């Protein structure tokens, strides 16, 4: 029971971490507080569902289609919807308010579209649903696959950010957009690229989650919420922080769901969030500035 709870916590936490890495990129580099982020996760889940059930394309292949599609979609969202706000904002605070409002509207549009197409029911599909024995616990193979992908993609993402030129540029913009400009970094491009990359991460999270969890059109808000909490807990813009925080959240949730009540997972999330806010609002690995 315990090893099962811990394992499902790690899988879940891995997903949270992956999704939160994308959000920390969007918020840290592009300075967009994207409240519609979770909707993009759910859209990807439904896209994987449609690919699997109507075209017979399994979600692993589906990823190859959905990652670039989501990258392009988020690129377009940034260019069309958010660029005008960036241009209009006088300071970071105003951009924050504007982007919160705009993406809040986007949230309801995306949710509305999904509701019209799919209704309010829970969905799932069959993919590698056989049990595998891991440390004495029977784990569905799809969870293992999802976790494997999360690890590989998360690691790849980390390496891109720390070892490549463009990754370094993104991190520089996250630290200080003004100074980044001085060393010939195209800040506008970096912001747009980071937003699109973050969106692609959301899509990966959505596809992986859909492999082993049921999902519904109204789940987006919860994903956004958890991703935001993970981002804050790990420290805004901190990739490793997001990883650790995501795992903590996932394991805490799985333990509570197994031993206390599955109906209280959001309460756990909030308790953790409150503790972070009260004790260390700059995050586990954040610097002391806010």
């Amino acid at each position, binding site marked *: 029971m315990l090893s099962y709870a811990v394992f499902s916590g790690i899988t879940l936490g891995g997903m949270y971490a992956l999704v939160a890495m994308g959000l920390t990129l969007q918020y840290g580099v592009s300075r967009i507080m994207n409240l519609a982020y979770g909707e993009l996760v759910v859209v990807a889940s439904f896209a994987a569902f449609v690919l699997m059930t109507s075209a017979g394309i399994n979600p692993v292949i589906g990823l190859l289609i959905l990652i670039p599609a989501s990258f392009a979609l988020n690129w377009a969202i940034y260019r069309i919807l958010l660029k005008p706000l960036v241009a209009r904002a006088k300071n970071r605070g*105003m951009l924050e308010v504007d982007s*919160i409002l705009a993406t809040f509207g986007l949230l*309801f549009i995306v949710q509305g579209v999904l509701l019209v197409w799919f209704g309010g029911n829970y969905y799932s599909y069959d993919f590698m649903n056989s049990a595998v024995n891991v440390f004495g616990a029977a784990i569905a193979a799809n969870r293992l696959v999802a976790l494997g992908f999360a690890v590989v993609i998360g690691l790849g993402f980390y390496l891109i950010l720390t070892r490549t030129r463009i990754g370094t540029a993104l991190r520089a913009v996250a630290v200080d957009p003004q100074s980044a400009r001085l060393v010939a970094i195209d800040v506008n491009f970096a912001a747009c690229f980071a937003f699109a990359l973050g969106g692609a991460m959301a899509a990966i999270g959505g596809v992986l989650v859909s492999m082993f969890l049921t999902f519904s059109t109204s789940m987006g*808000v919860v994903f*956004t919420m958890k991703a935001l909490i993970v981002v804050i807990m790990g420290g805004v813009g901190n990739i490793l922080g997001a990883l650790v925080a995501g795992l903590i959240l996932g394991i805490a949730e799985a333990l509570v769901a197994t031993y206390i009540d599955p*109906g*209280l997972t*959001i309460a756990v*999330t909030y308790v953790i969030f409150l503790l972070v806010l009260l004790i260390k609002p700059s995050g586990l690995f954040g610097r002391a500035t806010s």
Partner: protein
Amino acid sequence: MNIVTFKSDFIKPVILGAIIFAALAFLPSLVDSYYMSLAISITSFAILATAWAMFSGPTRYISLATVVFFGIGAYTVAVLGEILPFPVVLICAALAGTVLALLVGFSTLRLAGVYFVIFTFGLTELVRQVVSWYEVNVTRELGRYIFLDITQDDIYWQLLTLLAVLLLTGFILGRSRLGFALRIIGEDETVAKHCGINVTRVKVALFVLSAVFMTLTGAIMAPRWTYIDPVIAFNPMLSFQVVIMALLGGPRRLLGPILGVIPLTLLFEVLTANFPNHFSIMLGVTFMVIVYLLPGGVIGLYEKYGGPNKPSHPNGPPTTKEKTA
């Protein structure tokens, strides 16, 4: 402490407002029940949007949790309505709202605004889950019935009174030290701190005040439903609607939000009647249009073009930040 600076322009708007509200009180004898229910919607949204703007307008802390307080008010009535007399129930509701607002306020308002937004964003989900959990595990019934001897007209009058009190509060606030402190915080928090303002305490005080009005609205509206469950009482759409209304009207002025409430309540009425399945999409689109095309709200538009060039605050000319906001 000298809370209110009496000026010659203080008495006139109050008397004018009193006359308008006295006239509105006769509405039930003039129109049929359909228009009464519309009037109730408009009045309740007017309270919610004005209360929202009272805190979020000057501070720019966007609260996405209006429905949490509203739902808590409704639930207080559902739980206590048949045990206690209604005025006492209202007091209990206000207390419940105060406690929650204090909790949220003190844990988030010391920090940057974004923490507050995130906290309120998920708060609805949290409260709904906790209430559902409690109902399922402790009372073993998900829904509750509210049978109170309160007519539609009573609800309307109660709401009207609450709106009058809210507007008067807002009016006095705009001329008080507290309101002034709040505006300084909205302009520049660092400056406010250097002026000796206890920034957190002012923000929490205002947040609590605004939350109490939201809670009372929920409590007054509860008898209208006869049946509530967590999904009905904590519908996030309500928070969303309130934000749109306040933004359309212009959250930086006392009467601004009401200007947004009237057209949008009518629009929602048309949308729910004609496009029940596309309601959310239409709402999202309306919202985007307002955010992109009317950043200052209707009032901002009026101030920008044509209107008499009044200072937007009685205490001084608008700053550059305000004009662009």
